[in-house]
């Protein structure tokens, strides 16, 4: 249902989206919602369809069936309005390593039509938010992987989006850097009211109070508040829930194939 109260419009609404590569079905009627100011964990193994979903949300692929709306703006019919509300941290590195942190962020600001004076203010803000103010003039290539991730997040936040997508943002990070990033982004969603969709295959990155979406082989198996999802599955924790749900889905697949 589409609500007209702006506070109730979901930050992201994926509505029965399917996608296939040739004969292979990557997403099958996927529906999910990211509420405003929520931290939603999209949980799925490699190959579950997470990256395909991200490519559809960011309009790299055309949506051929179903709808994706960002704050009520359809990505296919109003891409400008939808994408201007969206910040993305891609799995692959998106920064130029040859140039400085500030130059990278300036480029990103320009891609959102933000002039240099305003960009300077915003850059100072986002760098402060990820605690990287003192590295502004450093060459990106000289940063550690964890620091680069923080800059990627700063970059994604620069144009003040109200929805932030992160695709496996902790890949390649050590335990400490991973905890730092997770902590940073969680605080963003509570303090700044940003809706976050955090895609991962690491079950321990979700915690009580988060929303979770379990995606498996292109199908959503469960979604809702973490405690509810665990409760409904009758498992003790999210790990058990995930195993139970995916095993049941695989069994159904085998049975229907037989």
């Amino acid at each position, binding site marked *: 249902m589409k609500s007209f109260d702006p506070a109730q419009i979901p930050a992201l609404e994926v509505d029965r989206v399917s996608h296939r590569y040739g004969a292979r079905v990557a997403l099958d009627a996927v529906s999910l919602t990211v509420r405003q100011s929520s931290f939603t964990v999209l949980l799925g193994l490699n190959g579950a369809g997470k990256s395909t979903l991200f490519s559809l949300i960011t309009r790299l692929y055309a949506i051929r069936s179903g709808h994706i709306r960002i704050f009520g703006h359809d990505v296919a019919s109003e891409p400008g309005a939808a994408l201007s509300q969206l910040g993305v941290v891609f799995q692959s590195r998106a920064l130029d390593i040859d140039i400085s942190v500030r130059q990278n962020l300036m480029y990103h600001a320009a891609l959102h*039509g933000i002039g240099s004076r305003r960009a300077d203010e915003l850059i100072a803000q986002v760098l402060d938010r990820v605690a990287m103010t003192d590295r502004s003039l450093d060459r990106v290539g000289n940063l550690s992987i964890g620091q680069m991730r923080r800059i990627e997040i700063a970059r994604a936040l620069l144009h003040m989006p109200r929805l932030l997508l992160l695709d496996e943002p902790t890949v390649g990070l050590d335990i400490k850097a991973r905890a730092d990033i997770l902590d940073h982004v969680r605080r963003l969603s509570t303090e700044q009211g940003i809706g976050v969709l955090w895609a991962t295959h690491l079950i321990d990155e979700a915690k009580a109070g988060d929303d979770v979406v379990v995606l498996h082989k292109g199908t959503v198996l469960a979604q809702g508040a973490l405690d509810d999802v665990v409760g409904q599955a009758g498992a003790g924790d999210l790990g058990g829930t995930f195993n139970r749900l995916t095993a049941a889905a695989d069994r159904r697949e085998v049975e229907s194939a037989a």
Partner: protein
Amino acid sequence: MTAAAETTTRHSFSLAQYFICMKGIVWREALRFMHQRERFVSALVRPLVWLFIFAAGFRQVLGLSIIPPYETYVLYEVYITPGLIAMIQLFNGMQSSLTMVYDRETGGMRTLLVSPFPRWWLLSSKLLAGTLVSVLQAYVFLAIAWFWEIEPPPLGYLALLPALLLSGLMLGALGMLISSLIKQLENFAGVMNFVIFPMFFASSALYPLWRVRESSPLLFYVCELNPFTHATELIRFALYEQVSWISLGVVIGCTAAFLFGAILAYDPGRGFLARRNNPAG
């Protein structure tokens, strides 16, 4: 709630914002270029090798008659200079295309395409950025060539600018179109063999077409149809303060066609992005 009002107003960009975006893309290309000095040097060395060695060797072999835009007999070095300038731009266009493929494999291309500006604007800005770099390379080459007694009229240098912009846009747009057809970085060697070499050799860059016609009428027609011939002739005439109208028309037409093709190819609904098989989850 102000957030809702903000939502409705934020997506329409002003003209000034369009230019901020374009400026940002051009500026990034310039920064990148400055950080890749090898690229600049190799872009210059290639035509200089042709000029200093190949042309010197061929000077005695190939006799040239007086053909427009030249008013006197010219040295072979002088004859091939416009072709070498076009070659700089051809390589630059293909290099930008390579960069786009590389960007696609890293996140750079995604960052660009996720911008809320219309995609045709983003791609045109990127094309302009690459073209400006090639124009700069061409002038540096001409400056060096001047010491090699390639001295076109002073105003020719000025008249050359619009010609360089046009030919650069055409070859850049071609590169962009090709980049959408290449699936992976490794396929780039194929571009060398199947695009750069045939385009360069089957053109008026190294030999006047009337001589080609003497040896093979078929090859002559191929050369005539080659857009690279027209980029070369546009540059050649401009350098001598003249306009080759046919070449001008061909270059403008090809630019429009290639750019249109590239924009279609990068459109999420139609182009390679939709066709591409992405095995990653």
